[in-house]
C-alpha cells in the first residue's frame, strides 16, 4: 500500500536525549525478543504517495478548478478484518463477521484429522469415536455411541443404531450428515480435507512449553470432568454407508484411530489445540483427544 518511506537513520544520540528523565527499556537485552518496534522519525520526499491527494488539490487550485466543497465526498475507508489462520484467507468488513467466522470454523478442530466441528461436545464425541482406540475396544462390549442430542444421554452399540434413534426419536432428517468413515469420503470430501490440511499446517515452533500446558491441563481437566457441561454434537460428517457392519466399522475405526494414535503418541509435540473449553486451557498444544486418557504422559 505505501511506498517505502525514507526513514531517517537513527543516530545514537537520539536514543538518550539529555535531561529527559524517561526510563530506558531493558528489552534489548532480553534473549530472543521478537518485538521490533522503536520510535522512528519519518521523512517524506516530494513524490511520496502520501502526498498525492494534497498535491492534486494544490494543482486543481492553481488551475482554477478548486472548490471548497468537494463534489463527491472522498471515501473514508474502514479497515477490514481478516482471518490470519494459516491457509484461511477469509476477509470481513466487520469485527462481528470475523468473530462469527472464527468461532464457527476455527474453534473446535480435531487435531488428528483436522476436521472442524461446530461445538466442543461434538468435537469430544468425534475424537472419542474416531481417534481413540480404547473406544473401539470398549465399543465391542458395551454401548458407546452417544446420542448427539444434548441431554438425551442414550448410548448405542453401533453408529447405525444411533442414527436410527436420531431419525426416529429426535426427528433428524434421514440424509443428515452423520459420521462417515474415511474410506467413504468422496472426492468432494478429500478436496475439503486438502484445504484443511494446508489450513492446519503450523510450524513446530509453536508448541514448546508443553510441560506447562500439561500441568495446567491436568489441573483443569480434573475440574472440568466433574459436571462441566460441554456441548458435544457430532456434526458435519456425512452419513456412513448404511450397510457397513459394526465390526468393519470398528476395524476401520481402530485402524484409523490406531494410525492417528501412533502419530500422536510418537510426536513429542502435539501440534496445536483448537479445543479450548469455555474455561481456560492456555498453552498451545493441549490436544483434547488425549487429555485424561491414554496417550498423555504422566
Amino acid at each position, binding site marked *: *500500500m505505501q511506498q517505502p518511506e*525514507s526513514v531517517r537513520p537513527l543516530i545514537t*544520540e537520539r536514543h538518550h536525549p539529555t*535531561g529527559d528523565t*524517561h526510563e530506558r*527499556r531493558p528489552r534489548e537485552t532480553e534473549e530472543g*525478543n*521478537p*518485538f*521490533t*518496534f*522503536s*520510535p*522512528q*522519525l*519519518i*521523512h*517524506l*520526499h*516530494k*513524490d511520496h504517495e*502520501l502526498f*498525492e*491527494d*494534497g*498535491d*492534486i*488539490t*494544490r*494543482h*486543481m487550485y*492553481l488551475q*482554477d*478548478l*478548486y*472548490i*471548497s466543497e*468537494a*463534489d463527491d465526498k*472522498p471515501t*473514508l*475507508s*474502514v*479497515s477490514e*478484518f*481478516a482471518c*490470519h*489462520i*494459516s491457509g484461511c484467507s477469509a476477509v470481513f468488513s466487520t*469485527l462481528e463477521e470475523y468473530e462469527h467466522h*472464527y468461532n464457527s470454523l*476455527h474453534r473446535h478442530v480435531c487435531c488428528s484429522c483436522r476436521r472442524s466441528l461446530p461445538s466442543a461436545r461434538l468435537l469430544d464425541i468425534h475424537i472419542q469415536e474416531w481417534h481413540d482406540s480404547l473406544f473401539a475396544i470398549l465399543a465391542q462390549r458395551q454401548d458407546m455411541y452417544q446420542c448427539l442430542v444434548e441431554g438425551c444421554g442414550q448410548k448405542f452399540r453401533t453408529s447405525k443404531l444411533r442414527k436410527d434413534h436420531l431419525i426416529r426419536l429426535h426427528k433428524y432428517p434421514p440424509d443428515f450428515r452423520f459420521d462417515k468413515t474415511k474410506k467413504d469420503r468422496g472426492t468432494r470430501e478429500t478436496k475439503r480435507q486438502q484445504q484443511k490440511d494446508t489450513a492446519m499446517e503450523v*510450524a513446530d*515452533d509453536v508448541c514448546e512449553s508443553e510441560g506447562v500446558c500439561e500441568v495446567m491441563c491436568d489441573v483443569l481437566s480434573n475440574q472440568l470432568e466433574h459436571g462441566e457441561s460441554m456441548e458435544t454434537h457430532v456434526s458435519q460428517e456425512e452419513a456412513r454407508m448404511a450397510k457397513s457392519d459394526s465390526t468393519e466399522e470398528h476395524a476401520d475405526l481402530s485402524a484409523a484411530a490406531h494410525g492417528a494414535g501412533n502419530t500422536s503418541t510418537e510426536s513429542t509435540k502435539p501440534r*496445536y*489445540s483448537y479445543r479450548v473449553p469455555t*474455561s*481456560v486451557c*492456555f498453552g*498451545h498444544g493441549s490436544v483434547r483427544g488425549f487429555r485424561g486418557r491414554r496417550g498423555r504422559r504422566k
Partner: protein
Amino acid sequence: MWRLNKVRHKAAGRHGDSLEELKLKRREHERALRQARRDRQLVSKRLLLNEDEDQPEVTMDTNSGEQDVVSLFHKLQQTGSEREARLKALSKALRDPSAQLAFIKQENSMHLLVGFLTGSDATCRLQAVRCLHELSHSPHTNVAPACLPATPYLLTYLSGQSTKFTELCLYTLGNLCPESDVVKEKLLAQGIIPALANCIENQRHNLAVVEAVGFTLSQLLQAKDAAEKIIPMVLASSLPSHLLSVLTPDPDFGLAPAIECAWCLHYLTCSTEDNRVLLAHGALLKCSSLLVSLGAAVAEGNKEEGMELLICPLLRCVGNLLSSCPVEDLSTQVGDVHIVVALCALLQAYLQTQPALARESAWVLNNLTAYSSALCSALLTFNLVPGLIQLLPFSQGINTMILRALANIAHKKKEFCVQLAHLGLLSALCATLKMADQEMVTLSMDVLFMLVVSGPQVAEEFVRQGGLSLLEAIQYNSKGDIRRRATHLLEHHLLSYSVVKTYLLNL
C-alpha cells in the same frame, strides 16, 4: 490575485454545461493530474485574467483567430497610431492556442513583442507583456520556449513599481519555468533567484506581488533536479526569511500569498533531509505556531475557504523539519506543546472530508511523539488519547500512523503504558490484532507487548478481556514473525503463575 470563491458560480452557466457535466469534467481533470503526478510530470500554469474578465473566455472560432493574429502582426510591424489598440487586440487573440502557434511561426514576431516590451510607451509595454503572458500559458510545447528572448527584460522589470505589470512579468516567468531544462538553465543564469529575492523584499507591502513571487518560486522549486542546483541557491539567499514572514495570513487580503509561500517551504523541506538552514531561520517554530492557531480556528468551526490549501503545506513542513531537528532542540523549535491539540483537532475535523489531510496530520503526530516525552505527556494530559483510539478503525494509512504515535507514547514510560491501558487501548488492540492489514497486526503486537510488560495490572486486565485465547489463535497466524510474538508473550509474560492464579481465582 486569485478569488477562491468566484471560481464555481460563473462556470456553471458556461457553454450550457450542466452541473453533472461540470462534475464529470472536473473528475476527468483530476484523473489526468493524478496520472501526471505518477509520471512526475505534474505541472500547472496560471493565467492572470484581465480586469474585465471573470473567467477565461476562449473563442471557439480558431480560424479567424489565427487570421486575426497574422494580420495584427503585419499591421503592428508598420508604424502607426493604432499600436496600443492593436496590441490589446493581439493579446486577446493570443488566448487561443492555435493562434499562439500561428503567431510564433511568423518571423520576427518575438522580436516585435520585445521591442514593445522595452519601448518607451508604458501602455504598449503592458500590452506586450500581456501578449507574452498569454503565450507563456500555451499548452503547446514549442510556444513558451519562443518567449525566451524576453526573459532578461522580464527579470529586470521585477524591480519595477507597477503592480499589474510586475504581476504579469512574474506569472509569465512562473509559467515558463517548468517548460524545459533549457529554459530553467537560462533563467537561473539570468539571475532569477536574486531577482525574486529583491522583488519580494521591496514589495513586501504589496501582497498581490508577493503571491506572484511565491508562485514563480514554487514553480522553480518543483523541478525534478531542484535539489542539486536551485534549492542550495534559494537557501543561500534571503528568500527563506521572507517566505517565513509572509506565512501569517493577512485577514484582509486572504490566504493566497501565505499559501504560495508555504508551498515553497514545503518543496524546500521535502527535497532534502538536511534542513538545518531552515531550522536556523526558525521555520519549525513559525510553522508549528501557525498550525496551533489554525488548528484552534478549525476546532472552533472557523473554516475559512481554502484553509486546507495552507494547512497542507504547513503540516508537511513541520513533519519534515521535525525529522531534521535534533532532539535537544525540540522544545525550543516546537515551542508550544499545544501543537498536539491542534493536530488532533485537524485530524478530527478533516477525517471525513479530506482523509488525506487527516493522514498527514497523523504522520506529523508520529514525528512529534517519536523522541519527545514532553509531547507524549501532553497528549495524555490534554486527554487526546481516547479520541485517537477511536480513529483506529480507519484505514489507508490513518490507523497505522496513529498506532505508531500511540506506540511512541507507550515506548517512553511504563506509567504511560498503564494510562494507555486504562484509556481503552487494550481492548482496541484486541480488535486491531484481527485486522487484514499486516502492518496493523504487527504494530498491535508490539504495542501489546509494551503494555503487558509494563505491569501486572495490565497483564491481568488483558487476560480478563480474553487475551489469552486471542493470542493462542494468533499462534496460528500465517506469518512466522507474528506467531513468534504471540508465543513469546504467552510464554514469558502471561503464563507466570501470578497471572494465572489471579485469573483462576476470579473465575
